[in-house]
């Protein structure tokens, strides 16, 4: 591992058991998170991005999940650690921010207690020192009256406040890696922006590496340094954020950008990607997995065993079909757009 690399994932497979067979939801993912970096993982629902996150931090149901491959962190392979060993890392070195702040806090515990919990297990601070740290953390995440909030229960706080509390929990032991799983999805748009600003500020302060899982390209553009696009369990494109937004290559990435509604366009129709993500059990395990959804592209354009190709420094694209790709409507073919209401 190079010195600026925090986390290195090599050929990770995470499979769920369905009727005694394991189906990989994360299928051969390799990724590197560097220090002081926000790495975004983008993809639609069911592409395996959340599974990837829970694999890293080990929060999956061990009876139903199989994790293979390497997750190298701090000279350890997280995928091979026991539950007890993972408990020493979770919360202390790697922590997580969850999607729904409404349900992610224990309704019967005071906010202060919930933040303090991690400190009890990972630090030898005295009770008074922990209380002081709780207030400091609440202040750090932008809560104005920390003394009062620490004594309150989750239902007494607004969604944005609760998400700030979740973030306070995540940063309480100054972790090196924070995994944020759709941290703004459940929030109002105005609150979203505040929470993202907070994440950026905290990242600059703590120099933690952040893995940001999202399906929102707007969020990615705002905060990420580097982006990995996932489709059907694989990374299909990876690039620095500017490169990806200005020069997307993979048909899936281009389709994603194409499907963002444009404020200034005259079009009344929303561009969509044809078809749906294949379910875990019906996933084609060979060939280009996106080929089903771009049937107008000739088969010869795809690689037999699609690999990631570095087409410019730091910019990786899977398969070769991007060279031949064009949108269906470019040729004036049949329409597949939704009719917007007028």
């Amino acid at each position, binding site marked *: 591992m190079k010195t600026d690399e925090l986390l290195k994932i090599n050929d990770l497979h995470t499979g769920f058991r369905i009727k005694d067979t394991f189906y990989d939801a994360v299928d051969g993912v390799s990724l590197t998170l560097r220090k002081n970096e926000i790495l975004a993982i983008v993809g639609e629902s069911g592409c395996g991005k959340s599974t990837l996150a829970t694999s890293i931090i080990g*929060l999956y149901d061990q009876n139903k999940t199989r994790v293979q491959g390497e997750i190298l962190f701090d000279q350890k392979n997280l995928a091979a650690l026991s539950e007890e060993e993972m408990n020493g890392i979770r*919360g202390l070195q790697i922590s997580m921010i*969850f999607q*729904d702040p409404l*349900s*992610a806090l224990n*309704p019967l515990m005071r906010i202060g207690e919930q933040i303090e919990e991690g400190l009890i*297990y990972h630090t030898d601070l005295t009770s008074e020192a922990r209380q002081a740290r709780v207030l400091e953390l609440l202040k750090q995440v932008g809560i104005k009256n920390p003394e009062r909030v620490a004594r309150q229960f989750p239902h007494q706080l607004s969604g944005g406040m609760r998400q700030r509390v*979740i973030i306070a929990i*995540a940063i309480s032991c100054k972790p090196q890696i924070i995994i944020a799983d759709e941290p703004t999805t459940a929030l109002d748009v105005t609150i979203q922006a505040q929470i993202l600003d907070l994440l950026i500020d905290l990242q600059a302060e703590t120099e933690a590496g952040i893995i940001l899982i999202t399906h929102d390209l707007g969020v990615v553009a705002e905060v990420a340094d580097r982006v990995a696009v996932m489709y059907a369990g694989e990374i299909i494109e990876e690039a620095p954020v500017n490169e990806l937004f200005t020069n997307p290559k993979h048909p899936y990435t281009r389709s994603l950008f194409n499907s963002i509604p444009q404020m200034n366009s005259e079009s009344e129709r929303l561009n969509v990607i044809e078809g749906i993500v294949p379910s875990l059990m019906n996933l084609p395990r060979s060939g280009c997995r996106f080929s089903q959804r771009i049937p107008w592209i000739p088969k010869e354009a795809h690689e037999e065993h699609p690999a990631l190709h570095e087409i410019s420094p730091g910019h990786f694209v899977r398969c070769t079909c991007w060279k031949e790709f064009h949108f269906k409507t470019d040729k004036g073919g049949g329409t597949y757009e939704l009719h917007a209401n007028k």
Partner: protein
Amino acid sequence: MWKTIVRRFLIMIPQLFVLSVIIFILAKFMPGDPFTGLITPETDPARIAELQEKAGLNDPWHIQYVRWVGNAIQGDLGLSYTYKRDVAALIGERALNTFWLSLLSVILLYLIAIPLGILAGRYQNSFLDKSIVFYSFVTYAIPTFVLSLVFLFIFGYQLHWFPTNGSVNIEHEAGSLSYYWDKFYHIILPSITYAILGTTGIIQYLRSEIIDAKSMDFVRTARSKGIPMRKVYSKHIFRNSLLPIAAFLGFTITGLLGGSIFIETIFGYPGMGQLFVSSISSRDYSVITALVMLFGFLALLGSLLSDIIMSIVDPRIRIE
């Protein structure tokens, strides 16, 4: 909160009034009267009629009702026709007996049901879980009188481990240590029987609550802090899973005075349940009405208590 509690008590007055009218009418509609049981071939019908007239049983029901309410408000619940004793004193004595029996029953019930429910939920689908669920359904299916009789036969009559009747042996001097010990000795077997049979609800509730709670987001948050699993259980999962049981606690507390008809009758235990059944069969009106009014009040009080308990254990619930 105090305002609400006072208001809830005030609402109880009309509720209890309606209940008293209904129970009074129903009791009077039952065929026969307290003196029917005294009739033998030698009884002079004129004597019975005289007794009925003297007891005021020939008056229209509403006159009787007003008379009864008037006395009840002054604290006089009348005399028991059967026992020839003041009803309040009679019920007080029985209520105390039932209270001790029920208290031990409920303690044993929780001691059995809560650990079993927790284990079943925590080790869902394991052999242990399946055994506990099997146990809970078997005990649910066994009628109370069957298990009571079986236990009474085995542990009482065959093994002579426990007394088979009564609440205390007559030879003990009231108030002495051996007297209290003997009282305790008499409630052990009926309590165990009651506890074994009553566990199903709590086990099943707790089991499903724990299974639900395990997959809650806040449990994942707790795990992401790196807390050991047993702490996640004790601090996060159990507390949330015990809420529905806390919701019934008020009823359980007031139910301590209700007594179990089957258990008390079969074990010959002089408690409220037994008194209730015998008062109905002997048409002991003053006891019937007093008991039903008491049970009604306890039910209302139980729901109020449950609400208060919930507002204490669950911060999301506040009585305004």
